[in-house]
């Protein structure tokens, strides 16, 4: 992306396109990566509610996986996941493993 010069900036640096944080991929900040274990998932969507980066993807009100372009690997989803009968549906794994 070509960087704008000072004359090209919007007045006062206001962000005029709502939601353009989507264009800023923060996934590379991650050191721990959430892995979804579908068979343990009860579709409670706690992960979707708690994710601070809206990186839990859903379709028809069902969890379908993670948006790894934006997931920073904070682990909140794994912490909140109740799993099924004590077996977590989200676990955190080290990147690059």
């Amino acid at each position, binding site marked *: 992306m070509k960087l704008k*010069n*000072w004359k090209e900036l*919007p*007045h*006062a*640096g*206001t*962000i*005029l396109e*709502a939601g353009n944080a989507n264009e800023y991929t923060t996934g590379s900040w991650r050191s721990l990566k959430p892995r979804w274990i579908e068979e343990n998932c009860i579709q409670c969507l706690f992960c979707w509610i708690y994710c601070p980066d809206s990186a839990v993807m859903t379709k028809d009100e069902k969890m379908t996986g993670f948006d790894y372009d934006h997931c920073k690997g904070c682990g909140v989803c794994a912490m909140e996941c109740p799993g099924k009968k004590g077996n977590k549906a989200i676990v955190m794994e080290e990147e690059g493993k």
Partner: protein
Amino acid sequence: MGVTTTKIVAVTGNQAVAEALRQLNPDVMPAYPITPSTGIMESFTSFVSNGKVDTEMILVESEHSAMSAGIGASAAGGRVATATSAQGLALMWEMLHIASGYRLPILMALVNRALSAPLNIHGDHSDGMGSRDTGWIQLYSENAQEAYDNTIMAYRIAEHKDVRLPIMVCQDGFITSHSIESMQYIPDGDVKKFVGEYLAIDPLLDIDNPKSIGALVLTDYYMEHKRAQHEAMLNVKKVVQDVSAEFAKLFGRKYELFESYRLEDAEVVLVALNSAAGTIKDEVDRYREKGVKAGLLKPRMFRPFPYEEVGAALRNAKAVCVMDRADSFGGYGPMFMEIASALYPHKGPFLFNKIYGLGGRDLMPLDVDKVIDETIEVAKTGKVKMVKEYITVRN
């Protein structure tokens, strides 16, 4: 068009500014009153209670909150004003930068007061000078009339499309804010017409076009933002000149970037802000009667500072004493630093600096005479004994 005036009134500086604010009828006024600016809010809240203005008055829990609420209201798209002094301005400090960084044309009536410690409630310029680098426009006022007129002009300057920066209108605590002087108000209708409607740029309350302010900007963009802000400041001078010229045409009172008092052929010049200029003018007259070519330069617009114009006005003097009612501890007085910078490219007069009147200490005519005498001596001998020295102090 004929000059419009109204009857002469006798009011304090605070009342005069409150009256200007009533006429400007801001949308939002967040405030946490503090001496000596309290009178402005006292009068203004009565206007609110009596339905004389449409303003939403927000009584907040601190000055930091006052400026924060002002920033929110201004970003939402409203015309915003507040008033403060000294510690109040100091507590606003981080928010002052945010108001200017977001280019929000907030109006602040600053009643200049000394900063603690030691605790003092009286007038000096420590607060205004301390905030000179916050990105606000600063206009200084000698008396109630100037404080009123500068306030009437403030939104026209701050809201100009080439500017969009917050503005402080300053007057001396107690000396001006609490002294009753005769002055003239402009009729309500004329003020309304002069100030006009405010059209905010990208207001947050334009909910059909959602937007965001306050995002993090790192090394890749911060400097571009600041460069744009610098450009806005560069545009202020012409806007102040244009608005002041229009004001003079309509209402008869003429204001420049600074006032030149018997300066044209002056060899011995004093520089001072605000109320002290009144005393100095009297003494300049007395010395003129004695045949001394004395003069005064009284800056009105301190931020942005009109370096070129001030430099040109002082270049031909023989000696200039810059009087500062604030100290930059470890440096020269703040005004001295500006005057020295203004003269820098020129082969100019001998310069020296007096720190006077801190914490509201009076500057008496005899004190001014001593300064003029020393300036005459410096002009004659070309020797400055001490560049920076305290006066009106017991040694």
